[in-house]
């Protein structure tokens, strides 16, 4: 490790060598400690997600707030199936119970009403909402992102590039809450509500949210695709030009196939960003997890549901509180898999040129 040790004795620095070595070892220890602390964060994420999720599926939860929104007294009093056990504690009638949610209900039902009565916990409306908004966003962002990247990579002069890059960075730096405001007050009324051919579009719509999420990920998509295109060896491009190819033919015939692995990875990363978006969807697509395939409707994504559930202050260990973790686990697994996939795509489909 320490280079100083390999140097002949008479060439060593004149300072106190033993002291130097102690400092060196101390520094390495501290740095190692800091470097591995990041692993603790990951462990923390997994632990904080997994434990309450297991509770969600296996444990009866107690909620000592008689009147909270998620499991109401009335339901326990009328002896709903979930809450019938509350009758076991005659004198503690304020205690309300919710039975564990069955795995088959979570993945088998299309009703998601965690906050009404005893609650219904079918996650499909959230999954479909997520897919619809992701699809809309990708229709907006993928072609135009690749288009801007082609422009920057093959058409723009150095000066234009130096001007455009910072502008795109500015757009990339716009906070999501600003995009959310934009979706609600501009994209919704001026675009989503005017140009949707299939029925009416309300104030809150998956369409407005999806378009805006697409605009939000556009600069990221562009940057990643541009990087992938820059990795294509110049000699390939020059060869094509020498054979008489036009700029367009270079783009579609050389850059696109040669940079395909990186561009596909860029798409996957951008989409995983779209899936995890909370604020825009929460502001623009409303707060109802509607079971629908119509983009004109209100809808919730997995991520926006988590944000929505977090707004209300719910008692710890209530089923409503635990949905945050159950849905969070699902979201984490999906985005994690997408990121793994993007890495695999890069490795698997890379064209080797050297």
């Amino acid at each position: 490790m320490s280079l100083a040790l390999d140097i002949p004795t008479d060439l060593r620095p004149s300072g106190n060598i033993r002291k130097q070595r102690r400092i060196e070892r101390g520094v390495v220890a501290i740095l190692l400690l800091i470097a591995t602390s990041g692993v603790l964060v990951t462990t923390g994420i997994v632990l904080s997600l997994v434990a309450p999720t297991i509770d969600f599926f296996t444990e009866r939860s107690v909620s000592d707030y008689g009147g909270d929104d998620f499991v109401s007294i009335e339901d326990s009093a009328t002896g709903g199936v979930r809450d019938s056990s509350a009758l076991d504690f005659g004198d503690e009638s304020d205690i309300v119970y919710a039975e564990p949610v069955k795995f088959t209900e979570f993945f088998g039902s299309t009703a998601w009403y965690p906050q009404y009565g005893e609650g219904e916990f079918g996650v499909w409306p959230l999954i479909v909402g997520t897919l619809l908004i992701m699809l809309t966003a990708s229709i907006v962002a993928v072609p135009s992102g690749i288009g801007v990247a082609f422009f920057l990579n093959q058409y723009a002069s150095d000066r234009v590039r130096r001007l455009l890059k910072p502008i795109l960075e500015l757009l990339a730096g716009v906070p999501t809450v600003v995009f959310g405001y934009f979706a609600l007050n501009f994209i919704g009324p001026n675009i989503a509500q005017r140009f949707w051919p299939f029925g009416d579009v309300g104030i809150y719509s998956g369409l407005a949210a999806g378009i805006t999420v697409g605009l939000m990920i556009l600069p990221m998509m562009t940057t990643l695709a541009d990087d992938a295109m820059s990795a294509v060896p110049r000699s390939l491009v020059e060869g094509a030009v020498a054979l008489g190819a036009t700029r367009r033919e270079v783009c579609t015939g050389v850059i696109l196939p040669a940079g395909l692995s990186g561009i596909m990875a860029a798409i996957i990363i951008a989409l995983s960003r779209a899936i995890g978006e909370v604020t825009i969807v929460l502001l623009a697509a409303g707060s109802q997890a509607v079971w629908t395939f119509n983009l004109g409707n209100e809808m919730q994504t997995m991520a926006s549901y988590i944000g929505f559930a977090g707004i209300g202050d719910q008692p710890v260990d209530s089923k409503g509180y635990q949905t945050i973790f159950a849905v969070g686990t699902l979201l984490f697994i999906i985005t994690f898999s997408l990121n793994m996939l993007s890495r695999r795509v890069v490795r698997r489909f890379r064209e080797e040129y050297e």
Partner: protein
Amino acid sequence: MSQPATISLTDTTSQGRRFRDVGFLVALWLSLLLALLTLATLVITTLIDGVPMLNRDFLTFFPSPFPEDSGIQSALFGSIWVTVTSGVVSLVFALGTAIYLEEFADSRSRVQRLVGLNIQTLAGVPSIVYGILGLAFVVRAPLNWGFTVGSAAATLTMMVLPIMIVATREALKAVPPSLREGSYALGATRWQTVYRQVLPAAVPGIATGSILGVSRALGESAPLILLGALAYVSYNPTGFDSDFTVLPLLIFKWSTEVQEEFRPLAAAGIIVLLAVLFALNLLAIIIRDRSRVKW
């Protein structure tokens, strides 16, 4: 994989080819226009809505349920508290991690691979998941800090850490090996080399990356929704155990209000937020351009 050489060379002068070339360029222009128009429309519509609200009262009044005497003072201070804290803490951790990985660890060692993979994983985690982590670990049980400035700063620190680490590693990688070798040849130890040669040379890159990381923390709203910062707080934070709100969340809350009067408030808040963020971005760009040293 597919053959790149699918270019037809027989019709070099055909009309159809020229036509397709022009059509393609038009499509690219439209894509670019979409990006530029988005930014322009977003800024202009917000300015139209918000500029009339921008005055001293807006900056000095506290948020309240009544639109006519609402301002952003506590959110402004909350944002400063949370962002500065998470910026400083994550910079320390990012520096330590990046220096270890780039300058000390053997690139084939298991620790290096584990930590590298871990950072990539963390960078892909949606921000709301950090909110869940903050809620479960910092606000509640193990740390039990409650809905406070400290919890928010801790959560945002974890969120921006991977971004800062990646940026710092890039900055260290950009320092040429010859600089290190020269230092070793003169008898310096590894740490002396890092501290006296590599770090000073990497300062501009690290600064740029840190500024971008801090901007992320400043504009972030999703994880803080889970941390209970979504309220009209009518006093400034006094310490890490204070209640707080931040500017993005105040904008969020104003945007969700049904009353029309809140909309200009949200727009004015956005103008303040964007002004700070654009200034930070500009600073990062200037630092990067100024320090473009060719080694």
